[in-house]
């Protein structure tokens, strides 16, 4: 059975070619703490844009400003061509937010949660009801429509939060860590749903600290660290620019890594020492591994893999993404 699409096509009132979101010198401060430190970016219509970074990098603060829930401290921000400071309500009526923490009413039913949310946008009940049926189907929650939210699994709650954000048929969907805390199966299902939305032309802005999520879902990425954008490009271009084609991972057991690291330095153009392993950056992983063996080193385990955004992040910030 083909899945019903929750919407026919995205109709934006924005002129063609006009970016969905523009940030120039954007700053967010909490007292003396600078959460977002003078960042610039543009998000095009229909684009899927990611903010990748560890906890505390300023992703959520940036998202909350785009969602017009948090005032801009300094710089310029335009969402749908409008200024959040003066047109917050107008912008919020045309965007959908999936916050980091679910804000569902746990004691009401799945359907009630959609009905209530639709009423905030002043949609007629009949319209919400129609959309709710399609959205519940889309979110694979149809059979739970009349169940309370409380006992649902984390993945179901997340899907409901996304369905709820789609009730108003937003032009821009903002997702703050949509899959954090979910098991792999639930994550893959969510990714599939987000991919469908993207294909329907919904502009997506996603924060995540999962590099696989960023690689799968995002056309372009801003790598954020300590409130700044360290680099911005397509996932492939970021990897090409900031990493080698392949990476050799070597594990020498507790205490062994540091000693070997000093000796292997120079074998490859870049080498990283992590608490549990060494990373050798090389365009020819197998060749490098042979070289390591020929030099008489026998790691407890070794792995040749292609470079990922994790390596990009390590290169740009000197730290791992998920610690």
């Amino acid at each position: 059975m083909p899945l019903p699409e929750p919407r026919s096509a995205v109709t934006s009132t924005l002129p063609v070619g006009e970016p969905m979101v523009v940030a120039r010198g954007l700053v967010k401060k909490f007292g003396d703490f600078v959460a977002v430190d003078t960042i610039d970016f543009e998000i095009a219509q229909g684009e899927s844009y990611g903010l990748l970074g560890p906890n505390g990098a300023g992703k959520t603060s940036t998202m909350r400003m785009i969602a017009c829930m948090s005032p801009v401290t300094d710089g310029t921000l335009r969402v749908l061509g409008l200024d959040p400071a003066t047109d917050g309500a107008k912008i919020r009526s045309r965007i959908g937010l999936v916050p980091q923490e679910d804000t569902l009413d746990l004691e009401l039913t799945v359907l009630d949660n959609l009905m209530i949310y639709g009423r905030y946008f002043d949609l007629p009940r009949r319209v919400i009801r129609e959309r709710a049926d399609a959205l519940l189907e889309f979110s694979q929650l149809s059979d739970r429509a009349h169940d309370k939210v409380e006992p649902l699994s984390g993945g179901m709650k997340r899907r409901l939060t996304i369905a709820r954000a789609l009730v108003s048929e937003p032009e821009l969907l903002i997702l703050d860590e949509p899959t954090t805390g979910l098991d792999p199966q639930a994550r893959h299902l969510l990714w599939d749903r987000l991919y469908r939305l993207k294909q329907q032309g919904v502009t997506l802005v996603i924060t995540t600290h999962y590099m696989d999520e960023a690689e799968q879902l995002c056309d372009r990425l801003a790598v954020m660290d300590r409130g700044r954008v360290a680099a911005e490009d397509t996932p492939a271009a970021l990897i090409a620019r900031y990493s080698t084609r392949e990476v050799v991972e070597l594990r020498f057991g507790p205490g062994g890594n540091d000693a070997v690291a000093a000796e292997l330095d120079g074998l490859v153009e870049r080498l990283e020492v992590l608490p549990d392993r060494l990373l050798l950056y090389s365009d020819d992983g197998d060749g490098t591994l042979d070289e390591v063996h020929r030099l008489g080193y026998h790691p407890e385990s070794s792995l040749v893999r292609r470079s990922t955004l994790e390596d990009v992040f390590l290169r740009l910030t000197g730290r791992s993404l998920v610690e």
Partner: protein
Amino acid sequence: MTVPTSTRPATPMWARSLGYWLYQYKRTWRGSITTSFLYPVLYLSAIGVGLGSLVNHHAHTVDSVKYIDFLAPGLMAATAMQIGGNEAMYPVMGAIKWMKTYFAMLATPLGVVDVLLGHLAWIALRLTAVTGIYLAIMALFGTVHSPFGLLAVPAGVLTGMAFAAPIAAFAATQVNDAGFSALYRFGMIPLFLFSGTFFPVSQLPGWLQIVADATPLYHGVALCRALTLGRLDAGGDLVHAAYLVALTAVGFALARRSFRRRLVT
């Protein structure tokens, strides 16, 4: 033929937020309405009729009326205080901390003032229902002696709001519910007992009378009593009403500030 949505007048933002509270009430309305009927019957029977017969036997009248006639409007105002206070404590904290309902609303076109107004409008509706039921039961007990008694409903709502607005302001500043028990213990319970609900304030020692006169429940009780007994005194009653309106307005201004501080960061 469907009507295009654009021809429908837009629902005001505060009314959309009120919609949430109406919606969630369908979960608890049965118990809540039953309580609204049961409490007045229990209180008026036990204290009004039961204890009242002792009082009447000894003193014949209190404030020159039967004890139950004196007591009932006082209890009505005290109930309004309790409902107004309760509805502004845990539900406000829950909407910030537990369910995060306010944050869900703020991601939509609603703003902070809409969220606050909607919640206060809901409390006012609850108070209307509770005081309306109270008045009906008072009438059954024969304690409403004037057509002005109907105005005791808006007077009761106003009494409740004079508590709800400032308490909502307070609740939005709290990180846990410890402050609420203090508010009950040192605020609402003493007010319930000493604001002229059960006996005239004139029975209190002089200095305590001055304190009682300054508390909001005293004014709510006095206003409701004047209306159900039909003992109107334009000047005095206007002072009572003005006091309650002023407290509601100040409470609202404070709540707007504390809601902004808590919800918009």
